[in-house]
């Protein structure tokens, strides 16, 4: 079974704090992803990584950065948290599929509240 774990289920932070969200996968997947999910907006891609130390911006990278020092671990960093970053954050990793259609497996999510 694929297992993707996230460091916290719930997190409450203050405006301006630096926030680290960590994600670990145990399936030796090349690709890892960070999304945020908001009501009415669905899942939006923040960043993804296709190899150690490699990253690419997704659709909404502003206000976020990422780090991938080891293959199994992908961190999302909020440099200075703001209230509009209150959201559900989801990590995923993917395995190769037919014709390049990789299947993504998600972690349980971190509900972040910024006060």
């Amino acid at each position: 079974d694929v297992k993707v774990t996230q460091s916290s289920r719930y997190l409450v932070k203050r405006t301006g704090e630096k926030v680290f969200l960590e994600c670990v996968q145990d399936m030796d997947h090349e690709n890892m992803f960070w999304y945020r999910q908001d009501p009415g907006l669905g899942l939006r891609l923040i960043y993804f990584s296709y190899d150690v130390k490699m990253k690419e911006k997704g659709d909404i990278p502003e206000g976020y950065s990422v780090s991938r020092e080891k293959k199994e671990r992908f961190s999302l960093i909020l440099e200075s948290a703001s209230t509009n970053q209150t959201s559900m954050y989801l990590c995923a990793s993917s395995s190769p599929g037919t014709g390049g259609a990789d299947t993504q497996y998600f972690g349980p999510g971190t509900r972040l509240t910024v006060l």
Partner: protein
Amino acid sequence: EDQVTQSPEALRLQEGESSSLNCSYTVSGLRGLFWYRQDPGKGPEFLFTLYSAGEEKEKERLKATLTKKESFLHITAPKPEDSATYLCAVTIASGTYKYIFGTGTRLKVLA
């Protein structure tokens, strides 16, 4: 513009009342279509991948089908434990690893 649309937004069924959820897509070069189930406050759980028109996949009371324009998730004789949000996503030929998600269908099955 590549787009995925799910309908209906919400669906209430009586236990045992079969129905279908729709995922229509307008993309250039579909590589794969994915169905996920998401319970409140949790991450999406993978259900199916479909790669080409005419393909079908089944799991318990769920059956996913794919045409050139849309996918259906058929739920046969649903039970209350099938209540969840069902998400559809696609990957496209030019999209590297990117998924395009629909906004989901919230399904409620009443006992």
